[in-house]
Protein backbone atom coordinates (compact mmCIF):
# COMPACT_ATOMS: atom_id res chain seq x y z
CA UNK A 1 0.00 0.00 0.00
CA UNK A 2 1.52 3.24 -1.07
CA UNK A 3 0.66 6.88 -1.20
CA UNK A 4 -0.86 6.58 -4.62
CA UNK A 5 -3.82 4.68 -3.23
CA UNK A 6 -4.92 7.71 -1.26
CA UNK A 7 -8.59 7.03 -1.14
CA UNK A 8 -10.57 10.18 -0.57
CA UNK A 9 -11.09 12.87 -3.11
CA UNK A 10 -10.52 16.34 -1.70
CA UNK A 11 -14.02 17.38 -2.60
CA UNK A 12 -15.56 14.80 -0.35
CA UNK A 13 -14.82 15.79 3.22
CA UNK A 14 -18.07 16.02 5.07
CA UNK A 15 -17.96 16.70 8.74
CA UNK A 16 -21.11 15.53 10.38
CA UNK A 17 -22.14 17.23 13.58
CA UNK A 18 -22.43 14.00 15.58
CA UNK A 19 -18.95 12.95 14.57
CA UNK A 20 -20.39 9.98 12.79
CA UNK A 21 -16.96 8.52 12.17
CA UNK A 22 -15.73 10.24 9.06
CA UNK A 23 -12.17 9.47 10.11
CA UNK A 24 -13.05 5.83 10.52
CA UNK A 25 -14.33 5.66 6.99
CA UNK A 26 -11.23 7.14 5.47
CA UNK A 27 -8.98 5.00 7.54
CA UNK A 28 -10.75 1.75 6.96
CA UNK A 29 -10.50 2.14 3.22
CA UNK A 30 -6.80 2.70 3.56
CA UNK A 31 -6.00 0.13 6.18
CA UNK A 32 -8.37 -2.52 5.07
CA UNK A 33 -7.17 -5.98 5.83
CA UNK A 34 -8.52 -9.00 7.60
CA UNK A 35 -6.25 -8.70 10.59
CA UNK A 36 -8.25 -6.16 12.63
CA UNK A 37 -11.37 -8.24 12.14
CA UNK A 38 -9.67 -11.37 13.31
CA UNK A 39 -8.21 -9.75 16.40
CA UNK A 40 -11.46 -8.05 17.26
CA UNK A 41 -13.30 -11.32 16.87
CA UNK A 42 -10.80 -13.14 19.06
CA UNK A 43 -11.17 -10.57 21.83
CA UNK A 44 -14.92 -10.88 21.65
CA UNK A 45 -15.19 -14.66 21.59
CA UNK A 46 -15.59 -15.10 25.37
CA UNK A 47 -18.61 -12.81 25.46
CA UNK A 48 -20.20 -14.49 22.46
CA UNK A 49 -19.68 -17.88 24.05
CA UNK A 50 -21.19 -16.82 27.37
CA UNK A 51 -24.38 -15.46 25.83
CA UNK A 52 -24.63 -18.18 23.26
CA UNK A 53 -24.37 -20.77 25.97
CA UNK A 54 -27.06 -19.04 28.03
CA UNK A 55 -29.48 -19.10 25.13
CA UNK A 56 -28.73 -22.70 24.17
CA UNK A 57 -28.71 -24.09 27.62
CA UNK A 58 -32.20 -22.93 28.39
CA UNK A 59 -33.59 -25.07 25.57
CA UNK A 60 -31.87 -28.37 26.25
CA UNK A 61 -32.30 -30.84 29.05
CA UNK A 62 -28.58 -31.12 29.57
CA UNK A 63 -25.51 -29.35 28.28
CA UNK A 64 -21.91 -30.37 28.51
CA UNK A 65 -20.14 -27.15 27.87
CA UNK A 66 -21.22 -26.12 24.42
CA UNK A 67 -22.41 -29.62 23.49
CA UNK A 68 -26.07 -30.36 24.06
CA UNK A 69 -26.14 -33.71 25.84
CA UNK A 70 -29.88 -34.08 25.82
CA UNK A 71 -32.82 -33.43 23.51
CA UNK A 72 -34.27 -30.03 22.71
CA UNK A 73 -36.95 -29.08 25.21
CA UNK A 74 -39.17 -26.31 26.46
CA UNK A 75 -39.36 -27.95 29.89
CA UNK A 76 -36.93 -25.43 31.36
CA UNK A 77 -39.38 -22.66 30.70
CA UNK A 78 -42.27 -24.27 32.52
CA UNK A 79 -41.70 -21.88 35.44
CA UNK A 80 -43.74 -19.49 33.32
CA UNK A 81 -46.86 -21.59 32.88
CA UNK A 82 -46.60 -24.23 35.58
CA UNK A 83 -44.41 -22.82 38.34
CA UNK A 84 -45.82 -25.23 40.92
CA UNK A 85 -44.14 -28.15 39.16
CA UNK A 86 -40.68 -26.64 39.54
CA UNK A 87 -39.27 -28.02 42.73
CA UNK A 88 -36.52 -25.45 43.04
CA UNK A 89 -38.95 -22.57 43.03
CA UNK A 90 -41.31 -23.97 45.63
CA UNK A 91 -39.88 -22.16 48.63
CA UNK A 92 -39.47 -18.91 46.74
CA UNK A 93 -41.77 -16.06 45.83
CA UNK A 94 -43.57 -16.69 42.53
CA UNK A 95 -41.99 -15.32 39.42
CA UNK A 96 -44.75 -13.05 38.15
CA UNK A 97 -45.00 -10.88 41.29
CA UNK A 98 -41.21 -10.73 41.32
CA UNK A 99 -41.23 -9.48 37.77
CA UNK A 100 -43.80 -6.85 38.67
CA UNK A 101 -41.71 -5.77 41.66
CA UNK A 102 -38.67 -5.45 39.45
CA UNK A 103 -40.64 -3.46 36.92
CA UNK A 104 -42.06 -1.13 39.56
CA UNK A 105 -38.64 -0.70 41.07
CA UNK A 106 -36.93 0.21 37.82
CA UNK A 107 -39.74 2.41 36.50
CA UNK A 108 -39.97 4.33 39.76
CA UNK A 109 -36.21 4.75 39.88
CA UNK A 110 -36.17 6.07 36.32
CA UNK A 111 -39.05 8.46 37.02
CA UNK A 112 -37.45 9.91 40.15
CA UNK A 113 -34.08 10.25 38.45
CA UNK A 114 -35.57 11.93 35.37
CA UNK A 115 -37.68 14.41 37.26
CA UNK A 116 -35.10 15.45 39.78
CA UNK A 117 -32.08 15.53 37.54
CA UNK A 118 -33.81 17.51 34.81
CA UNK A 119 -34.89 20.12 37.34
CA UNK A 120 -31.53 20.29 39.01
CA UNK A 121 -29.66 20.10 35.71
CA UNK A 122 -31.67 22.98 34.31
CA UNK A 123 -31.14 25.11 37.38
CA UNK A 124 -27.42 24.42 37.28
CA UNK A 125 -27.20 25.13 33.58
CA UNK A 126 -29.14 28.39 33.57
CA UNK A 127 -29.53 30.02 36.94
CA UNK A 128 -27.07 31.73 39.11
CA UNK A 129 -27.53 31.08 42.79
CA UNK A 130 -25.23 31.07 45.75
CA UNK A 131 -23.43 27.79 46.22
CA UNK A 132 -23.85 26.81 42.57
CA UNK A 133 -20.17 26.15 42.07
CA UNK A 134 -19.97 24.19 45.24
CA UNK A 135 -23.02 22.14 44.39
CA UNK A 136 -21.71 21.31 40.92
CA UNK A 137 -18.37 20.38 42.36
CA UNK A 138 -19.85 18.14 44.99
CA UNK A 139 -22.17 16.48 42.49
CA UNK A 140 -19.23 15.71 40.25
CA UNK A 141 -17.38 14.42 43.24
CA UNK A 142 -20.33 12.25 44.23
CA UNK A 143 -20.62 10.95 40.70
CA UNK A 144 -17.10 9.70 40.73
CA UNK A 145 -17.57 8.68 44.31
CA UNK A 146 -18.18 5.00 44.83
CA UNK A 147 -21.53 5.00 46.53
CA UNK A 148 -21.32 1.36 47.57
CA UNK A 149 -18.84 2.30 50.27
CA UNK A 150 -21.67 4.13 51.94
CA UNK A 151 -23.99 1.14 52.28
CA UNK A 152 -23.33 0.69 55.98
CA UNK A 153 -24.33 4.24 56.80
CA UNK A 154 -27.19 4.21 54.30
CA UNK A 155 -28.50 1.22 56.21
CA UNK A 156 -28.63 3.39 59.34
CA UNK A 157 -30.32 6.26 57.52
CA UNK A 158 -33.00 3.95 56.15
CA UNK A 159 -33.66 2.52 59.59
CA UNK A 160 -34.03 6.00 61.00
CA UNK A 161 -36.47 6.96 58.25
CA UNK A 162 -38.45 3.77 58.77
CA UNK A 163 -37.85 2.77 55.16
CA UNK A 164 -35.67 -0.23 55.86
CA UNK A 165 -36.95 -3.46 54.31
CA UNK A 166 -39.29 -1.55 52.01
CA UNK A 167 -39.26 -1.17 48.26
CA UNK A 168 -39.78 2.58 48.57
CA UNK A 169 -36.59 2.95 50.58
CA UNK A 170 -34.57 1.01 48.05
CA UNK A 171 -36.03 3.09 45.22
CA UNK A 172 -34.97 6.30 46.93
CA UNK A 173 -31.46 5.03 47.60
CA UNK A 174 -31.09 3.76 44.06
CA UNK A 175 -32.36 7.04 42.61
CA UNK A 176 -30.02 9.00 44.83
CA UNK A 177 -27.08 6.90 43.65
CA UNK A 178 -28.02 7.51 40.02
CA UNK A 179 -28.62 11.19 40.57
CA UNK A 180 -25.13 12.69 40.26
CA UNK A 181 -24.65 11.14 36.83
CA UNK A 182 -28.15 12.20 35.84
CA UNK A 183 -27.65 15.79 36.92
CA UNK A 184 -24.42 16.08 34.98
CA UNK A 185 -25.86 14.49 31.88
CA UNK A 186 -28.92 16.74 31.93
CA UNK A 187 -26.80 19.80 32.58
CA UNK A 188 -24.73 18.82 29.56
CA UNK A 189 -27.83 18.56 27.39
CA UNK A 190 -29.27 21.84 28.66
CA UNK A 191 -25.94 23.52 27.98
CA UNK A 192 -26.21 22.64 24.30
CA UNK A 193 -29.62 24.33 23.90
CA UNK A 194 -29.12 27.87 22.56
CA UNK A 195 -30.38 30.26 25.17
CA UNK A 196 -31.85 32.65 22.61
CA UNK A 197 -34.94 30.43 22.51
CA UNK A 198 -35.56 30.79 26.17
CA UNK A 199 -34.69 34.43 26.03
CA UNK A 200 -37.45 34.90 23.50
CA UNK A 201 -39.92 33.03 25.67
CA UNK A 202 -38.89 34.95 28.75
CA UNK A 203 -39.14 38.27 26.96
CA UNK A 204 -42.60 37.31 25.76
CA UNK A 205 -43.60 37.00 29.35
CA UNK A 206 -43.43 33.27 30.05
CA UNK A 207 -42.35 32.31 33.54
CA UNK A 208 -39.26 30.29 34.34
CA UNK A 209 -41.19 27.14 34.99
CA UNK A 210 -43.30 27.50 31.86
CA UNK A 211 -40.21 28.13 29.79
CA UNK A 212 -38.53 25.09 31.27
CA UNK A 213 -41.47 22.80 30.71
CA UNK A 214 -42.79 24.10 27.37
CA UNK A 215 -39.66 25.26 25.57
CA UNK A 216 -36.59 23.58 26.96
CA UNK A 217 -37.77 20.15 28.03
CA UNK A 218 -39.04 19.18 24.55
CA UNK A 219 -35.65 20.11 23.16
CA UNK A 220 -33.77 17.75 25.43
CA UNK A 221 -36.05 14.81 24.74
CA UNK A 222 -33.18 12.68 23.41
CA UNK A 223 -31.34 13.30 26.65
CA UNK A 224 -34.36 12.40 28.74
CA UNK A 225 -34.90 9.24 26.74
CA UNK A 226 -31.30 8.18 27.09
CA UNK A 227 -31.11 8.95 30.78
CA UNK A 228 -34.46 7.28 31.40
CA UNK A 229 -33.34 4.13 29.63
CA UNK A 230 -30.08 4.10 31.51
CA UNK A 231 -31.81 4.50 34.86
CA UNK A 232 -34.38 1.88 33.98
CA UNK A 233 -31.81 -0.69 32.94
CA UNK A 234 -29.70 0.09 35.95
CA UNK A 235 -32.72 -0.38 38.21
CA UNK A 236 -33.77 -3.59 36.49
CA UNK A 237 -30.31 -5.03 37.03
CA UNK A 238 -29.78 -3.84 40.56
CA UNK A 239 -28.80 -6.58 42.94
CA UNK A 240 -26.88 -5.24 45.90
CA UNK A 241 -29.40 -2.69 47.19
CA UNK A 242 -32.45 -4.97 47.35
CA UNK A 243 -30.20 -7.73 48.66
CA UNK A 244 -28.94 -5.63 51.56
CA UNK A 245 -31.90 -3.39 52.29
CA UNK A 246 -34.82 -5.80 51.87
CA UNK A 247 -33.70 -8.91 53.71
CA UNK A 248 -37.18 -10.27 54.37
CA UNK A 249 -37.76 -10.56 50.64
CA UNK A 250 -41.46 -9.75 50.70
CA UNK A 251 -40.92 -7.26 47.89
CA UNK A 252 -37.92 -8.97 46.38
CA UNK A 253 -36.82 -8.47 42.81
CA UNK A 254 -35.70 -10.95 40.17
CA UNK A 255 -32.05 -10.42 40.99
CA UNK A 256 -32.67 -11.78 44.49
CA UNK A 257 -34.27 -14.90 43.07
CA UNK A 258 -31.36 -15.35 40.68
CA UNK A 259 -28.88 -14.98 43.49
CA UNK A 260 -30.74 -17.58 45.55
CA UNK A 261 -30.72 -20.00 42.62
CA UNK A 262 -27.07 -19.28 41.95
CA UNK A 263 -26.17 -19.93 45.57
CA UNK A 264 -28.03 -23.15 46.20
CA UNK A 265 -28.39 -24.76 42.84
CA UNK A 266 -24.99 -24.45 41.32
CA UNK A 267 -25.08 -27.86 39.82
CA UNK A 268 -28.67 -28.83 40.28
CA UNK A 269 -30.78 -27.78 37.36
CA UNK A 270 -28.79 -25.97 34.70
CA UNK A 271 -31.67 -25.69 32.33
CA UNK A 272 -34.11 -24.13 34.72
CA UNK A 273 -31.68 -21.57 36.10
CA UNK A 274 -30.47 -20.51 32.66
CA UNK A 275 -34.07 -20.18 31.52
CA UNK A 276 -34.86 -17.94 34.48
CA UNK A 277 -31.67 -16.01 33.80
CA UNK A 278 -32.54 -15.54 30.15
CA UNK A 279 -36.05 -14.49 31.13
CA UNK A 280 -34.55 -11.91 33.46
CA UNK A 281 -31.98 -10.53 31.02
CA UNK A 282 -34.19 -10.59 27.92
CA UNK A 283 -36.03 -7.28 28.45
CA UNK A 284 -32.71 -5.52 28.84
CA UNK A 285 -31.31 -7.12 25.71
CA UNK A 286 -34.39 -6.15 23.71
CA UNK A 287 -34.28 -2.59 24.99
CA UNK A 288 -30.64 -2.46 24.08
CA UNK A 289 -31.29 -3.82 20.63
CA UNK A 290 -33.85 -1.13 19.87
CA UNK A 291 -32.40 1.77 21.76
CA UNK A 292 -28.69 1.24 21.40
CA UNK A 293 -28.17 4.64 19.83
CA UNK A 294 -30.00 6.39 22.64
CA UNK A 295 -28.01 4.53 25.25
CA UNK A 296 -24.76 5.38 23.53
CA UNK A 297 -25.78 9.03 23.35
CA UNK A 298 -25.51 9.31 27.07
CA UNK A 299 -21.78 9.23 26.74
CA UNK A 300 -21.81 12.03 24.23
CA UNK A 301 -23.72 14.23 26.61
CA UNK A 302 -22.21 13.11 29.84
CA UNK A 303 -18.59 12.28 29.44
CA UNK A 304 -16.43 14.73 27.65
CA UNK A 305 -13.91 12.68 25.75
Amino acid at each position, binding site marked *: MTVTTTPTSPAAPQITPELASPSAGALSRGLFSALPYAVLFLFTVPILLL*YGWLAFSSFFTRMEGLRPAGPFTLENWRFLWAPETVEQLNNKPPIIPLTINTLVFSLATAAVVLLISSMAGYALSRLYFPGRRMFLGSVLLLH*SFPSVTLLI*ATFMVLRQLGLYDQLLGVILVKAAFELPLGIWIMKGFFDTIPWELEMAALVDGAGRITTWWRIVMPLVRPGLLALGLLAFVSGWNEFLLPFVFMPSGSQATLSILMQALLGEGRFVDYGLVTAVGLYYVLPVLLLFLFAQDQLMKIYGGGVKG
Partner: protein
Amino acid sequence: MGPALILVMAFFVAPVILTLGMSFTDMATTTGLANWHWSGTENYERMVRGSFTLLILGNTLFYVAVALTFNILMGLGVALLSVHVEPRTGSFFRAIWLLPRISPSVVYVLMWTWAAAAPPYGVINQLVAPFGVEGRYWINSDPWLMVLLVNGFVGASFGMLVFTSAIRSIPEELFRAAWVDGANAWQIVRRITLPLLRWPILFVLTYQTMSLFSSYEYILLLTNGGPGLYRTEVWSLWAFHTALNSYFGNLEFGYGAALAAVLVVMGLLVSFILLRLFRFNDLVSEPRIEIT
Protein backbone atom coordinates in the same frame (compact mmCIF):
# COMPACT_ATOMS: atom_id res chain seq x y z
CA MET B 1 -33.10 21.86 43.06
CA GLY B 2 -34.86 21.16 46.31
CA PRO B 3 -35.57 17.45 45.83
CA ALA B 4 -32.10 16.85 44.48
CA LEU B 5 -30.62 18.45 47.55
CA ILE B 6 -32.74 16.35 49.89
CA LEU B 7 -31.85 13.04 48.25
CA VAL B 8 -28.19 13.95 47.99
CA MET B 9 -28.19 15.02 51.64
CA ALA B 10 -30.00 11.93 52.88
CA PHE B 11 -28.08 9.34 50.92
CA PHE B 12 -24.67 10.88 50.32
CA VAL B 13 -23.80 13.61 52.78
CA ALA B 14 -25.40 12.06 55.82
CA PRO B 15 -23.89 8.62 55.14
CA VAL B 16 -20.42 10.09 54.73
CA ILE B 17 -20.69 11.85 58.08
CA LEU B 18 -22.33 8.80 59.65
CA THR B 19 -19.62 6.52 58.32
CA LEU B 20 -16.93 8.68 59.83
CA GLY B 21 -18.84 8.99 63.09
CA MET B 22 -19.66 5.31 63.42
CA SER B 23 -16.09 4.38 62.80
CA PHE B 24 -15.29 5.69 66.27
CA THR B 25 -17.90 3.58 68.02
CA ASP B 26 -18.24 -0.06 68.98
CA MET B 27 -21.66 -0.36 67.41
CA ALA B 28 -22.53 -3.94 66.50
CA THR B 29 -25.38 -6.42 66.71
CA THR B 30 -24.20 -7.34 70.20
CA THR B 31 -24.48 -3.77 71.45
CA GLY B 32 -27.68 -3.09 69.56
CA LEU B 33 -28.40 0.23 67.96
CA ALA B 34 -28.95 1.93 71.31
CA ASN B 35 -26.25 0.74 73.66
CA TRP B 36 -23.14 1.60 71.75
CA HIS B 37 -20.20 3.54 73.11
CA TRP B 38 -17.56 5.78 71.70
CA SER B 39 -14.44 3.72 71.41
CA GLY B 40 -11.97 6.29 70.17
CA THR B 41 -9.60 5.01 67.56
CA GLU B 42 -9.99 1.41 68.71
CA ASN B 43 -11.40 0.30 65.33
CA TYR B 44 -8.47 1.78 63.47
CA GLU B 45 -5.95 0.26 65.84
CA ARG B 46 -7.67 -3.06 65.39
CA MET B 47 -7.38 -2.63 61.64
CA VAL B 48 -3.66 -2.01 61.89
CA ARG B 49 -3.18 -4.98 64.23
CA GLY B 50 -5.46 -7.29 62.28
CA SER B 51 -3.78 -10.41 60.97
CA PHE B 52 -5.64 -10.28 57.67
CA THR B 53 -5.27 -6.59 57.00
CA LEU B 54 -2.09 -6.91 55.00
CA LEU B 55 -3.37 -9.87 53.02
CA ILE B 56 -6.56 -8.04 52.09
CA LEU B 57 -4.74 -4.83 51.30
CA GLY B 58 -2.42 -6.78 49.04
CA ASN B 59 -5.38 -8.49 47.39
CA THR B 60 -7.00 -5.12 46.80
CA LEU B 61 -3.94 -3.55 45.23
CA PHE B 62 -3.33 -6.60 43.06
CA TYR B 63 -6.93 -6.69 41.95
CA VAL B 64 -7.10 -2.98 41.14
CA ALA B 65 -3.77 -2.96 39.32
CA VAL B 66 -4.42 -5.98 37.12
CA ALA B 67 -8.07 -5.21 36.42
CA LEU B 68 -7.17 -1.63 35.56
CA THR B 69 -4.46 -2.71 33.15
CA PHE B 70 -6.79 -5.17 31.49
CA ASN B 71 -9.61 -2.62 31.26
CA ILE B 72 -7.49 0.11 29.75
CA LEU B 73 -5.60 -2.06 27.27
CA MET B 74 -8.65 -4.03 26.22
CA GLY B 75 -10.81 -0.91 26.03
CA LEU B 76 -8.21 0.81 23.93
CA GLY B 77 -7.71 -2.24 21.74
CA VAL B 78 -11.37 -2.76 21.04
CA ALA B 79 -11.96 0.96 20.47
CA LEU B 80 -9.07 1.28 18.00
CA LEU B 81 -9.92 -1.89 16.13
CA SER B 82 -13.64 -1.26 16.00
CA VAL B 83 -13.11 2.25 14.66
CA HIS B 84 -10.71 1.04 12.00
CA VAL B 85 -12.87 -1.71 10.61
CA GLU B 86 -15.97 -1.18 8.54
CA PRO B 87 -18.35 1.04 10.59
CA ARG B 88 -21.26 -1.37 10.82
CA THR B 89 -19.05 -4.23 11.92
CA GLY B 90 -17.37 -1.92 14.37
CA SER B 91 -20.56 -0.89 16.05
CA PHE B 92 -21.72 -4.49 16.11
CA PHE B 93 -18.63 -5.48 18.09
CA ARG B 94 -18.99 -2.52 20.41
CA ALA B 95 -22.58 -3.54 21.08
CA ILE B 96 -21.43 -7.05 21.97
CA TRP B 97 -18.89 -5.59 24.36
CA LEU B 98 -21.58 -3.59 26.07
CA LEU B 99 -23.65 -6.69 26.82
CA PRO B 100 -21.87 -7.56 30.09
CA ARG B 101 -22.29 -4.00 31.29
CA ILE B 102 -26.01 -3.90 30.65
CA SER B 103 -26.78 -7.41 31.86
CA PRO B 104 -27.77 -7.99 35.47
CA SER B 105 -24.73 -8.88 37.50
CA VAL B 106 -26.37 -12.05 38.79
CA VAL B 107 -27.00 -13.38 35.29
CA TYR B 108 -23.55 -12.40 34.09
CA VAL B 109 -21.88 -14.15 37.01
CA LEU B 110 -24.14 -17.15 36.49
CA MET B 111 -22.80 -17.52 32.95
CA TRP B 112 -19.21 -17.32 34.12
CA THR B 113 -19.81 -19.70 37.00
CA TRP B 114 -20.99 -22.37 34.65
CA ALA B 115 -18.45 -21.61 32.00
CA ALA B 116 -15.91 -22.34 34.70
CA ALA B 117 -17.64 -25.52 35.90
CA ALA B 118 -15.81 -28.80 36.37
CA PRO B 119 -15.77 -31.37 33.54
CA PRO B 120 -17.79 -32.41 31.69
CA TYR B 121 -19.74 -29.18 32.00
CA GLY B 122 -17.56 -26.10 31.76
CA VAL B 123 -17.05 -24.33 28.46
CA ILE B 124 -13.61 -23.17 29.55
CA ASN B 125 -12.51 -26.75 30.06
CA GLN B 126 -13.70 -27.68 26.60
CA LEU B 127 -11.80 -24.79 25.07
CA VAL B 128 -8.49 -25.42 26.79
CA ALA B 129 -8.61 -29.20 26.54
CA PRO B 130 -6.92 -29.26 23.10
CA PHE B 131 -3.97 -27.43 24.64
CA GLY B 132 -3.48 -30.16 27.19
CA VAL B 133 -4.84 -28.26 30.15
CA GLU B 134 -6.42 -30.53 32.71
CA GLY B 135 -10.12 -30.02 33.38
CA ARG B 136 -11.00 -28.38 36.66
CA TYR B 137 -13.46 -26.21 38.52
CA TRP B 138 -11.80 -22.92 37.74
CA ILE B 139 -13.38 -20.86 40.49
CA ASN B 140 -11.76 -23.07 43.10
CA SER B 141 -8.48 -23.71 41.37
CA ASP B 142 -7.80 -20.26 39.93
CA PRO B 143 -10.12 -17.86 41.74
CA TRP B 144 -8.12 -14.75 40.91
CA LEU B 145 -8.05 -15.51 37.21
CA MET B 146 -11.81 -15.83 37.22
CA VAL B 147 -12.39 -12.72 39.32
CA LEU B 148 -10.21 -10.70 36.99
CA LEU B 149 -11.81 -12.09 33.84
CA VAL B 150 -15.31 -11.48 35.13
CA ASN B 151 -14.51 -7.91 36.11
CA GLY B 152 -12.35 -7.25 33.09
CA PHE B 153 -14.96 -8.08 30.51
CA VAL B 154 -17.37 -5.70 32.23
CA GLY B 155 -14.85 -2.97 32.91
CA ALA B 156 -13.25 -2.78 29.49
CA SER B 157 -16.42 -1.49 27.86
CA PHE B 158 -16.28 1.76 29.81
CA GLY B 159 -12.90 2.64 28.34
CA MET B 160 -14.05 1.38 24.96
CA LEU B 161 -16.96 3.83 24.86
CA VAL B 162 -14.96 6.81 26.02
CA PHE B 163 -12.06 6.05 23.68
CA THR B 164 -14.33 5.43 20.72
CA SER B 165 -15.99 8.80 20.96
CA ALA B 166 -12.61 10.43 21.57
CA ILE B 167 -11.08 8.83 18.48
CA ARG B 168 -14.05 9.90 16.41
CA SER B 169 -13.70 13.49 17.52
CA ILE B 170 -10.16 13.67 16.15
CA PRO B 171 -10.31 15.76 12.96
CA GLU B 172 -10.05 13.59 9.90
CA GLU B 173 -7.51 15.94 8.32
CA LEU B 174 -4.88 14.69 10.72
CA PHE B 175 -5.28 11.11 9.57
CA ARG B 176 -5.42 12.11 5.95
CA ALA B 177 -2.31 14.24 6.21
CA ALA B 178 -0.39 11.42 7.85
CA TRP B 179 -1.69 9.01 5.26
CA VAL B 180 -0.59 11.24 2.41
CA ASP B 181 2.80 11.57 4.05
CA GLY B 182 3.13 7.82 3.87
CA ALA B 183 2.54 6.81 7.47
CA ASN B 184 1.40 3.25 8.01
CA ALA B 185 -1.42 2.14 10.27
CA TRP B 186 0.75 1.54 13.30
CA GLN B 187 2.50 4.89 12.92
CA ILE B 188 -0.81 6.68 12.69
CA VAL B 189 -2.07 5.02 15.85
CA ARG B 190 1.17 5.50 17.70
CA ARG B 191 1.92 9.10 16.64
CA ILE B 192 -1.49 10.62 16.19
CA THR B 193 -4.27 8.71 17.90
CA LEU B 194 -2.59 7.76 21.15
CA PRO B 195 -1.13 11.19 21.96
CA LEU B 196 -4.52 12.77 21.32
CA LEU B 197 -6.14 10.23 23.62
CA ARG B 198 -4.07 11.30 26.59
CA TRP B 199 -6.90 12.99 28.44
CA PRO B 200 -9.50 10.29 27.88
CA ILE B 201 -7.02 7.68 29.00
CA LEU B 202 -6.24 9.64 32.12
CA PHE B 203 -9.93 10.10 32.76
CA VAL B 204 -10.75 6.42 32.42
CA LEU B 205 -7.74 5.55 34.54
CA THR B 206 -8.79 7.75 37.43
CA TYR B 207 -12.43 6.92 37.19
CA GLN B 208 -11.92 3.19 37.08
CA THR B 209 -9.37 3.22 39.85
CA MET B 210 -12.06 4.59 42.10
CA SER B 211 -14.76 2.25 41.02
CA LEU B 212 -12.46 -0.76 41.24
CA PHE B 213 -11.38 0.11 44.76
CA SER B 214 -14.95 0.17 45.91
CA SER B 215 -16.61 -2.45 43.73
CA TYR B 216 -17.27 -5.85 45.14
CA GLU B 217 -20.57 -6.95 43.66
CA TYR B 218 -19.05 -9.36 41.15
CA ILE B 219 -16.57 -10.79 43.63
CA LEU B 220 -19.35 -11.22 46.17
CA LEU B 221 -21.40 -13.19 43.67
CA LEU B 222 -18.55 -15.17 42.17
CA THR B 223 -16.35 -16.26 45.05
CA ASN B 224 -17.68 -14.33 48.04
CA GLY B 225 -14.08 -13.68 49.00
CA GLY B 226 -13.14 -17.36 48.96
CA PRO B 227 -12.29 -20.07 48.39
CA GLY B 228 -10.88 -20.60 51.82
CA LEU B 229 -10.23 -17.67 54.09
CA TYR B 230 -10.02 -14.33 52.32
CA ARG B 231 -8.38 -15.74 49.19
CA THR B 232 -10.06 -13.17 46.97
CA GLU B 233 -11.35 -10.80 49.65
CA VAL B 234 -10.83 -7.16 48.76
CA TRP B 235 -11.10 -4.18 51.09
CA SER B 236 -14.62 -3.10 50.14
CA LEU B 237 -15.93 -6.65 50.36
CA TRP B 238 -14.27 -6.93 53.75
CA ALA B 239 -16.14 -3.85 54.99
CA PHE B 240 -19.35 -5.29 53.59
CA HIS B 241 -18.79 -8.66 55.25
CA THR B 242 -17.87 -7.09 58.55
CA ALA B 243 -20.83 -4.78 58.83
CA LEU B 244 -23.66 -6.21 56.78
CA ASN B 245 -23.11 -9.83 55.90
CA SER B 246 -20.89 -11.50 58.46
CA TYR B 247 -20.11 -15.21 58.51
CA PHE B 248 -20.05 -15.00 62.27
CA GLY B 249 -23.50 -13.55 62.81
CA ASN B 250 -22.27 -10.53 64.71
CA LEU B 251 -22.56 -7.50 62.45
CA GLU B 252 -19.91 -5.02 63.52
CA PHE B 253 -21.23 -1.74 62.20
CA GLY B 254 -18.54 0.34 63.88
CA TYR B 255 -15.61 -1.67 62.60
CA GLY B 256 -17.15 -1.97 59.17
CA ALA B 257 -17.65 1.77 59.08
CA ALA B 258 -14.00 2.27 59.95
CA LEU B 259 -13.03 0.01 57.05
CA ALA B 260 -15.38 1.92 54.76
CA ALA B 261 -14.05 5.22 56.05
CA VAL B 262 -10.58 4.27 54.84
CA LEU B 263 -12.11 3.67 51.40
CA VAL B 264 -14.03 6.95 51.64
CA VAL B 265 -10.84 8.85 52.34
CA MET B 266 -9.14 7.08 49.47
CA GLY B 267 -12.09 7.90 47.22
CA LEU B 268 -12.04 11.56 48.22
CA LEU B 269 -8.34 11.81 47.49
CA VAL B 270 -8.71 10.34 44.04
CA SER B 271 -11.73 12.57 43.40
CA PHE B 272 -9.76 15.68 44.21
CA ILE B 273 -7.01 14.60 41.88
CA LEU B 274 -9.69 13.97 39.25
CA LEU B 275 -11.14 17.44 39.73
CA ARG B 276 -7.75 19.04 39.41
CA LEU B 277 -6.80 17.06 36.33
CA PHE B 278 -9.99 17.82 34.53
CA ARG B 279 -9.83 21.54 34.91
CA PHE B 280 -12.93 21.70 36.99
CA ASN B 281 -13.31 25.42 36.26
CA ASP B 282 -14.12 24.75 32.62
CA LEU B 283 -16.92 22.47 33.62
CA VAL B 284 -18.67 24.92 35.93
CA SER B 285 -18.30 28.07 33.88
CA GLU B 286 -20.91 30.64 34.77
CA PRO B 287 -24.33 30.29 33.12
CA ARG B 288 -25.29 32.52 30.27
CA ILE B 289 -28.69 33.61 31.46
CA GLU B 290 -28.91 35.10 34.87
CA ILE B 291 -32.52 35.96 35.32
CA THR B 292 -34.09 34.66 38.46
